[in-house]
């Protein structure tokens, strides 16, 4: 670990000396405790926090930061769950409810493929009537039309819904999805692993244990997945940390998480009386996530959620991925995100370079497609 030589010098500059023993544990590759996490979150030494996370990020991923060119397809906004924090879901009869036909999905995919998209990111509501076969058909038709484009589809929440409506086991659902063309799974629907919060915000949604279990089943089947945390609403710092530790333990037990994505909550157009996260909270959360989740390879600063500016700065606070030139994102934008719908590749490369890292265009599994030296 070449980073070690510089570590000594870095520790000398820590103003918050309580962080030094934690940093030493991090650089020895050991897990941090819940209490360590609290000390990290409560520290005002933003620079120490950032450099610890940055050093760990470089130990894991070298000087690289990634992006991907992908197309989000949200097949429907009809959803039986009606989570309180969601500004995307609609009920049958709502004027702006929509459901895409297979043809419409294929048309969006076709346009995106022509732009060189490497990945379809497919996430939607829990449709009240669509049968399991419809979800299968979406995958099958997409794969048939675009065999070389990676399909990252369906959160654990959708998978659980499919198991319920089909009467199949989680494992059987995942096997069938994979056979139809699913290559990996996104990390949404995790929210916060806390019964208190789920009762208050999303009582109908997949439980914490079921969410983790679905991902572990996927991992055991060889399906890579991502994981997330929705923060900045009614949760406490302690609940965030317990969430991170549960993810770390799941990864320990059945490895397969590729990336962790901290999702900053956008309160606009939702009934939750939160005010949106601050820049410092965003960066601390990125840094603490990197430090707590030493066994998950990538930390994503999702620019759609954070905004281009904070996402870029996050690359110096332990993040190593900006996600991508997302074509048409609806879920966060319905909740008031001000970020544009897409960032050109040129801009992503520039942002990464100016943050002092080497841009790498990746595929969905973090294979390098091109290094921008």
């Amino acid at each position, binding site marked *: 670990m070449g980073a070690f030589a510089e570590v000594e010098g870095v520790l000398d500059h820590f103003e918050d000396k309580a962080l030094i023993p934690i940093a030493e544990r991090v650089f020895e590759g050991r897990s941090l405790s819940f209490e360590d996490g609290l000390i990290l979150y409560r520290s005002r030494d933003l620079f120490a926090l950032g450099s610890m996370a940055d050093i760990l990020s470089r130990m894991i991923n070298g000087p690289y930061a990634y992006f991907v060119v992908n197309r989000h397809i949200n097949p429907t906004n009809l959803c039986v769950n009606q989570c309180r924090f969601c500004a995307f879901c609609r009920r049958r009869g709502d004027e702006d409810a929509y459901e895409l036909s297979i043809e419409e999905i294929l048309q969006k995919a076709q346009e995106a493929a022509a732009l060189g998209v490497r990945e379809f990111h497919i996430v939607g509501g829990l449709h009240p009537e669509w049968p399991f076969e419809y979800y299968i058909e979406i995958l099958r038709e997409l794969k048939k039309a675009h065999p070389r484009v990676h399909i990252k589809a369906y959160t654990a929440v959708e998978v659980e819904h499919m198991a319920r409506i089909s009467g199949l086991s989680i494992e059987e659902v995942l096997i069938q999805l994979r056979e139809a063309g699913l290559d990996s799974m996104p990390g949404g629907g995790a929210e916060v692993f806390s019964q208190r919060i789920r009762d208050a915000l999303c009582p109908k949604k997949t439980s914490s244990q079921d969410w983790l279990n679905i991902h572990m089943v996927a991992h055991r089947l060889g399906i890579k997945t991502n994981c997330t945390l929705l923060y900045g609403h009614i949760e406490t710092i302690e609940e965030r940390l317990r969430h991170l530790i549960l993810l770390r333990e799941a990864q320990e037990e059945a490895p397969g998480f590729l990336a962790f994505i901290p999702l900053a909550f956008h309160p606009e157009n939702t009934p939750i009386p939160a005010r949106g996260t*601050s*820049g410092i909270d965003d960066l601390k959360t990125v840094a603490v996530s990197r430090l707590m989740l030493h066994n998950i390879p990538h930390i994503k600063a999702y620019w759609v959620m954070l905004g281009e500016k904070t996402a870029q700065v996050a690359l110096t606070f332990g993040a190593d991925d900006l996600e991508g030139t997302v074509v048409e994102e609806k879920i966060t934008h319905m909740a008031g995100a001000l970020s544009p719908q897409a960032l050109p590749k040129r801009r992503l490369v520039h942002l990464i370079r100016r943050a002092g890292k080497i841009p790498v265009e990746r595929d969905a599994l973090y294979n390098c497609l091109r290094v921008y030296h």
Partner: protein
Amino acid sequence: MERIGEEEALALFDEDLLSLGRRAYEARRVLHPDNLVTFCVDRNINYTNICISRCCFCAFWRDKGDSEAFLLPKVEIFKKIEETINLGGTSILIQGGLHPDLEIGYFEDLFSSIKSRYPIHIHGLSPPEIWHIARKSGLTLEDTIRRLKAAGLDSIPGGGAEILSPRVRQRLSPNKVSVEGWLEVMETAHRLGLKSTATMMFGHIEGPGDIIEHLDRIRSLQDRTGGFTAFIPWTFQPLHTGLAHIEKATAVDYLRVLAISRIYLDNVPNVQASWVTQGAKIAQLALYFGANDFGSTMIEENVVAAAGATFRMSRDEIIRCIKDAGFTPAQRDTLYRVIRTF
């Protein structure tokens, strides 16, 4: 802390962002050990967008005959001032284009009629405007500033500096007051007892050397006069300008230049975060990268808004943002005297 030279400052452009931030944070703490972050409640009043300067980086100016050209009538300016006072404002920032017809009489009348009606601080007329007014009126700079001050001008905003490097200025704003002219206006004003701010607009065609040249000119003048209250760096907003093709400066670039400014300008007491160009999140972070002031609530802002900056913050949001960062928010007046803390 020892003053750094130009060479050393140039090397900071390659330094790790967080180490640089820590240095700037230290420099700021030496000057402001009290943990306060100040802000001002005021309003930008742009009395005209008619401008003969036609700078290629600006999306605000119009020609005199243009359908969107305006010169605000006095009653409208008064109305804006009344709204400002009702919102707890202590100051107005009066700035506008270089109008082809307005001479000193217009401004003397405007300022004295404001002062006779309202107890408000007039922060007005950037150096290019003062230079232009002097020339239009056939007056020396000294007489111009003396008369404006007598009519009610209280302090001068540091706009129109862009980058104080002749090379850059020649390309960006050839019709605008020169580097020496800008500095001469400020030096004269300071000598006549008017405080001012200084700004820097970067992220266009300048290089690191030009930025350091700018900082050095400000620092040298400040050594002589002590008249600058604050330094305000902000990033060029390319939309709708003649330089729309330029890659917009990133947040990391902004934080870097902000930190370098704080470190280099050891004699300028305050450094402002620019939430107008950076948004609340990066402006909050800027408090760790050298800034100790959150600028103004800007009840109204038109110039960078014309170039695509869409950020908006209310007074309460500013207070919250400062508190969340671990500092004590304080409302100040235009001369950086604290009025109340929150």
